[in-house]
């Protein structure tokens, strides 16, 4: 570790690694730090991702693709299925990843591009001077360090501290986080061609349960519920119940827990000398919970904007506002729509969810987009037109 870099990236998930890689490709001097001893482990993710979304960042490689699926099936509380093809189903369906290998492959790309990567290296605070973030304080292998940089990129996930240290309130309301538990299971009977989603207030209040194929006889079987509806009930207890009903003879190879921000993006994702990307900036899709592609996209934009800002010698919020403008024009509108959809769907009764599913069960969704699905819903359910009207703009 040197005393000074152009850019320090905190967190080596997909967002941080792409940010570091992008900045290094622009000939910046980059340090990428990860507090865990192993990049990608422990996993906190259902590992579903859209094919197209990922291809623009890394060439698909069998080593980190556990399975490919043809589509998604959404089951209403009474078991009515709505089927969508993979390319239409949205950002969480297509590949099911092996995140441990995937995250490492992305960090490797950053390293090959010239970034210095350090694990077991945790940020504990920021160096602040004249209202500018000027570096990171931390611990490496237990020893204190400080490192200076002109730009800090906070890619420290759902538990982000970097934003808070810079004065950005990143606290998630309980109604803005999904609390999740997942088993990697084997010896279970499932359809390997689909990612399955189960919605309902009994099954998963304010969230959904999922079965994502992992290749062979394995699948990620998980469940997330809205934090505001958790407390007495725990995601883990509901998952155990779901699994007991669905796969009483299955074996659990791994237990995974996680929190997914579903608040929609932060109002402020920049400060003087600082940009927040991915889950740290709450970029995950509020309806699906998918965050990988948005993390990589915002990481890439942040890397590019860092290069531009440094070449001009201006890292003020004014200069970095290009980052906010660019992510807003790329994903701002769909995230806003997803947030509205979340507000509506997480409040729906099981009867209403069933009625919606019945109304469109005969529709051919093989060539339908998520917006198409909503249009079909509205056409057949004029009463909910008013609630859903914003989504169709």
């Amino acid at each position, binding site marked *: 570790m040197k005393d000074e870099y152009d850019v320090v990236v905190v967190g080596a998930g997909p967002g941080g690694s792409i940010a570091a890689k992008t900045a290094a490709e622009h000939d910046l001097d980059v340090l990428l730090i990860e507090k865990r001893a192993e990049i990608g482990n422990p996993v906190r993710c259902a590992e579903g991702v859209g094919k197209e979304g990922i291809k623009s960042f890394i060439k698909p490689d069998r080593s980190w693709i556990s399975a490919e699926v043809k589509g998604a099936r959404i089951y209403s509380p009474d078991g009515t299925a709505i089927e969508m093809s993979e390319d239409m189903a949205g950002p969480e369906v297509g590949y099911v990843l092996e995140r441990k290998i995937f995250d490492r492959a992305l960090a490797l790309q950053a390293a090959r591009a010239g970034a210095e990567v350090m694990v077991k290296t945790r940020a504990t605070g920021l160096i602040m001077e004249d209202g500018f973030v000027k570096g990171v304080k931390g611990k490496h292998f237990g020893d204190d360090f400080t490192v200076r940089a002109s730009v800090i990129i906070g890619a420290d996930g759902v538990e982000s501290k970097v934003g808070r240290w810079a004065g950005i309130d990143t606290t998630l309301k*309980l109604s803005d986080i999904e609390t999740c538990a997942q088993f990697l299971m084997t010896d279970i009977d499932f359809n390997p061609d689909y990612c399955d989603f189960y919605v309902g207030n009994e099954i998963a209040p304010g969230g959904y349960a999922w079965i994502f194929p992992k290749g062979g006889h394995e699948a990620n079987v998980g469940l997330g519920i809205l934090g505001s509806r958790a407390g007495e009930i725990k995601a883990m207890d509901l998952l155990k119940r779901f699994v007991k009903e669905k796969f009483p003879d299955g074996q659990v190879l791994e237990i995974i*827990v996680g*929190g997914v921000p579903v608040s929609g993006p932060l109002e402020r994702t920049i400060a003087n000398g600082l940009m927040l990307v991915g889950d740290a900036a709450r970029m995950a899709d509020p309806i699906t919970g998918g965050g990988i592609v948005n993390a990589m996209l915002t990481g890439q934009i942040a890397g590019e904007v860092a290069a531009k800002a440094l070449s001009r010698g201006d890292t003020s919020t004014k200069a970095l506002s290009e980052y906010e403008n660019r992510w807003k024009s790329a994903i701002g509108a769909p995230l806003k729509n997803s947030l509205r959809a979340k507000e509506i769907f997480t409040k729906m009764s099981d009867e209403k969810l069933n009625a919606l599913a019945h109304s469109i069960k005969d529709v051919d969704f093989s060539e339908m987009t998520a917006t198409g699905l909503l249009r079909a819903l509205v056409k057949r359910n004029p009463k909910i037109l008013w609630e859903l009207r914003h989504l169709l703009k």
Partner: protein
Amino acid sequence: MITVDRHKCGHCGACVGVCPANAIELINRWIELSDECIECGACAKVCPVGALEILNEG
């Protein structure tokens, strides 16, 4: 007082994300609580496995 059951904790960081007092930190594979805790209970509610608990003193 808030307590963590380290044997239950899956170190996911959800509790850190919802803490309004910035009193929780996830360090590699364990969490640490600071005295800034205001005992609001948000962390205990959001924990997917029930590893955090608020104990009433006295």
